[in-house]
Each structure stands twice: as structure tokens, then as C-alpha cells.
């Protein structure tokens, strides 16, 4: 009971941050379930070329005009088709790993024509990290850098070398543990598909990559004990009029733009018309960020079906990363033993 009350109070505490945005209403033509709620069921995609944070050249501009949006999409298309001839054969090329055949952010901006996913603060930028969190992250980065003064480090997707003594050293994505696309639901490199199934007291969201399930009871039950940590957190849902609200805590250490395990995520899904869900998420994490912040994403209907993304089962990349690191160590040891060679 106490826990339940705490959950409700937490939800209420988050409301002022969201109240400043115009509340969204379900469109007249949206399908509804037998119990009268908008039916969120279906296969949806949030693939977009809309930048996460507002780029410097768009400072002060919250929305594109229709002409600007068309121009932006055209320019992006050209950029995406770049054959990368200029960097062929370099480390930078290897670090990028994939070409435009693999990347699948779509070709369109959100149809809201927003210039960034981040909508609050109004400058469209993720707020500064707390000093404490900055120190923690800097210490982790320094330690990784120090370890890479010796051989046995491998490039990460971002192009920086990282330790590779074992899989535990590698980024969560390389280990198939998190693609930072499930909670919150943000488009990533590809496979930006989500399947929602809605029942009267439960909502399930299947995140295609890497088959991560969000299980959301809609029955007033409280979060699991705080000692329990989950990779997509522990979610509880409720209806606020026609908007489905998800409250998520109990995260594993899955940093999202610097968040820590105290992350409290509030998500709001509104089906504004038959083909569109507006999704707003508020990041509430006072130990990591100097203030709460909110993003907005548009989901549109996708044809489906979702594929099985058996990531860990086919993780040949990890074998390659670790065996390259061992090879480098061996080479270095041989060089030390007989420097002339």
C-alpha cells in the first residue's frame, strides 16, 4: 500500500513538467477497444532523420516550414547516399562499419516538422549533467583510456578505442544487451519497429531490436522492489483520458544521454489519428541531470511483420573483436621479445 502510494505520488510529481505542453487528444477516427480506450495496437515505426538535439544552425527555430522540411529531406538524402570514397581504407571507415545500405533512419522528418526530438528545454538540447555525474562519467572514461595505453583495445562504433579483455568491457550494444531504443523508444541505426498489443489491463510492446519486450501492467500495481534492476526498467501504465501514460523505474545501468540507475521515465502515447502516435517522454533523473527534460517522437504505421532479431545468437562481431584484441597482444609480446623483427 505504501509502495503503491509512493508510485502515485511519483506520477503526480512528474505532472507539472508535462503540463506546460498542450495536452494531446485522440483523433475522432482512431479505433477504440471494447473498454473505450484508443486502441494503440499495431506495428509502428519511429524511424526519422529529425535530429535528436537541435543543430546550431537551427537555433531558435522550433519547427521547419513545409518548404524548409522538403529541402532538409532532400539534402539528407544526398548525404546518406555518399559512397564514402574519401575515407576508404582508413580507420574511420572501419569505425563507421556500415554504409547507407544498412543504416535505416528513413528519409523523412517527423510530420510535426519539429527541428529536434528534444522539445524541453525550449532550446532543444539535453540539459547539463550534474557535477557529480560529470565526475563519475569522466572517471570511467579516464580509466578506459588508461587501459588502452596497452595493446588489446579495439575500436568501438563511435570510433574510440575501448578495452576488450572480455565482453564485459564492451558497449551494451555490442553485447546485445541494449540498443538504447526501448525505454525511451528512440529510433536507432535500423530496425526501428515496434509492435503493440493492448488488453484491458496490460499493454505489451515488442521492440524488434533485439527482441526486447516492454511489459506494462495497467492495473494499479506498484513497481517491483528497488533492489530489482531490469534492462528496460519496470513499467506501470495508466490512462490519462485518451493518453496512455507509462511510468518506468528500476533501470539497470543503461546510460541514456548520461542518465544513471535513478532514471525515472514518464512516457505518454496518444493516437492522434489512425496512422499516427505522438510519443512524449520525460527524463526525470535528479542525480544525473540538472533539470528534467522532455522529447517528442512521432510513430507512424508500419507494414510489418517484425522479424526475429537473434542478436546474441549470431554475435560474430564479438568473436572478431576479442580475437583481434588477443592477436594484437600476441604481436606486441613478440615485438618485445625480439624488437628487431
Amino acid at each position: 500500500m505504501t509502495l503503491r502510494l509512493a508510485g502515485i505520488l511519483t506520477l503526480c510529481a512528474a505532472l507539472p513538467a508535462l503540463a506546460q505542453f498542450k495536452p494531446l487528444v485522440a483523433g475522432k477516427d482512431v479505433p477504440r477497444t471494447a473498454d473505450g480506450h484508443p486502441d494503440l495496437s499495431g506495428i509502428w515505426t519511429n524511424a526519422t532523420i529529425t535530429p535528436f538535439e537541435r543543430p546550431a544552425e537551427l537555433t531558435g527555430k522550433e519547427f521547419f516550414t513545409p518548404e524548409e522540411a522538403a529541402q532538409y529531406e532532400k539534402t539528407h538524402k544526398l548525404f546518406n547516399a555518399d559512397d564514402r570514397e574519401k575515407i576508404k581504407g582508413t580507420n574511420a571507415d572501419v569505425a563507421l562499419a556500415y554504409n547507407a545500405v544498412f543504416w535505416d533512419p528513413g528519409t523523412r522528418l517527423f510530420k510535426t516538422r519539429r527541428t529536434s526530438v528534444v522539445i524541453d528545454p525550449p532550446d532543444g538540447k539535453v540539459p547539463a549533467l550534474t557535477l557529480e555525474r560529470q565526475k563519475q562519467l569522466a572517471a570511467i572514461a579516464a580509466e578506459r583510456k588508461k587501459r588502452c595505453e596497452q595493446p588489446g583495445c579495439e575500436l568501438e562504433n563511435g570510433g574510440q578505442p575501448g578495452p576488450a579483455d572480455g565482453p564485459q568491457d564492451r558497449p551494451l550494444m555490442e553485447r546485445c544487451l541494449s540498443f538504447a531504443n526501448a525505454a525511451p523508444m528512440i529510433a536507432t541505426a535500423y530496425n526501428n519497429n515496434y509492435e503493440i498489443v493492448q488488453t484491458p489491463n496490460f499493454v505489451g510492446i515488442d521492440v524488434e531490436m533485439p527482441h526486447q519486450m516492454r511489459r506494462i501492467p495497467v492495473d494499479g500495481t506498484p513497481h517491483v522492489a528497488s533492489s530489482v534492476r531490469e534492462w528496460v526498467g519496470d513499467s506501470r501504465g495508466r490512462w490519462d483520458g485518451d493518453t496512455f501514460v507509462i511510468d518506468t523505474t528500476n533501470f539497470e545501468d543503461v546510460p541514456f544521454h548520461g542518465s544513471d540507475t535513478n532514471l525515472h521515465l514518464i512516457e505518454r502515447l496518444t493516437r492522434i489519428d489512425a496512422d499516427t502516435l505522438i510519443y512524449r517522454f520525460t527524463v526525470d533523473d535528479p542525480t544525473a541531470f540538472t533539470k528534467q527534460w522532455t522529447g517528442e517522437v512521432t510513430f507512424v504505421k508500419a507494414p510489418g511483420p517484425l522479424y526475429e532479431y537473434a542478436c546474441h545468437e549470431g554475435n560474430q562481431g564479438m568473436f572478431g573483436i576479442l580475437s583481434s584484441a588477443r592477436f594484437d597482444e600476441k604481436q606486441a609480446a613478440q615485438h618485445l621479445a625480439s624488437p628487431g623483427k
Partner: protein
Amino acid sequence: MRVWTSWRLAAASLAIAVLLPPGYAQTTDAKVPRTADGKPDLNGIWQAMNTANWDLQAHGSAPGPVTSLGAIGAIPPGQSVVEGGAIPYLPAAAAQQKKNNEHRWTDDPEIKCYLPGVPRATYQPYPFQIIQGSNTILLTYAFAGAVRTVRIGKVEAVPNDSWMGWSIGHWDGDTLVIDVTSFNDQTWFDRAGDFHSDALHVVERYTPDGRNIINYEATIEDPKVFSRPWKISMPLYRHVEKGAHLMEFQCIPYAEDVVYGHLEHRKGDSK
């Protein structure tokens, strides 16, 4: 003979249907909860209560693989869940099963936290959840975050082979029937080395018996491995405890050292 029997059955069913009031589906059980569209409501968290994941066939207790774990790691006894008791292997496959069994403490894909396949996901010793929409049912399992999408009555081209298969469902009265095809040959049925090829075809039947029990049957067909189709059956029980919730059992972190250990830089190794 077979045709005659089917005809007689059909006639009998028709007679019953005429006698019963409208809306009374076959095998209707008043205690079975129903969805708004009148189907049995299978929503909830379910779990098998048997030792089939150790061995589908009858087995006595046995020591486990790690001596220091003592009784914790030991294998509990159990009866066969296979109709007729034995799995009808073809001779070459029987030899392969024996080999698998000898190497089960290293070769069982469960050790590596790989997706468990079907029907194994159903009777692993962890719960699973049914999230039942009208056209789509999600079957989500605690182990390895396995998930299956069951499309009701929608026949689509199979996209490609997979670990959890391609599931098409339909209702046969109050029974949810799921036809599962398009498997790879990488999963096992249990920790005893029972296996299949990529020709596996599974037909599952979920029949509610009251509110808290589903009678589960799976017919397994694989002409490369078995001499005939065979069937397993077992009850599945609803988690009725207050606040029952399917928690994530993300096992990758616990399997990584097994999968990649030979490529890791161990502490104490010179660098």
C-alpha cells in the same frame, strides 16, 4: 474408413450445434474467462510444473555437472510427457541424440542463453506471459527475453528461418491452435540432448480448463529426425499470486564467459 469416421463426427457435431442455444461454442466452460470478442481469455502468466526441460522422457534423479553445488545442481526425477513414453527417433538420429546427451553440459544451447525454441520455451522452469489481442497474440517468455508473435488467421509468407519459428494461429472452438514452422536446427528440446532439424513443424494446442489451467499439447513432426509425428502434453498453471508479474531474465551476462571465455584476456595473463 477414415472418411466415414470424419463424416460421422461432422454429423454428430452438427446435431449438437442444432440442439444447443446460439452462442454456445463447443467445449464451452462457464469458468473460462472471455475477451470482449467472446474468445477464451488466456491473458496472464503461466508456467509448467514438471521436469520436462531436464528430459522429456522418464528419468530418475541424477547428479548434476558441478560437484561443489551438491543437491542444488542435481537432476530431479520426472515422468515422460511424451505420449506413449518414447520419442520415435530414426536410427541415425538416435545415435546423434546419444552423442548430444554425452556432451550436454557443454552443447545444450540453453547454457549459452540462446533463444530456446518451441515447444521448449513453454516448459522451461520459468514463467511466460500471454498478451492476447484480437488479431495478434504475443507470447513472451522470461528466459532470454524470448518473444513470439502469433498472427490469428493471417497467412503470410514466411520471412526466414528463426530460433522461435513462425507462428500462425487460429481458434478451434475454445482451443488456440498455433502452427509453427520455419525453425533453424540450433535448438534442443531439453537438457538431455533431444533435438530436431530445420524441417521441424510444431502444432501447439492451448485448451483452457477453467480459469487457472491450460491443457497444452504439442505435436512434433520432423521427417529428417523422427519416424512419425509425436506428441507431448502437460497442464500449464496460471500464476495466481497477488502482484504476479513476469520479470525479465536477461541471461546474456551470465553466459558470456562460457561463449567467449577462450578469447578473453584472463587476469594474471601477461599483456
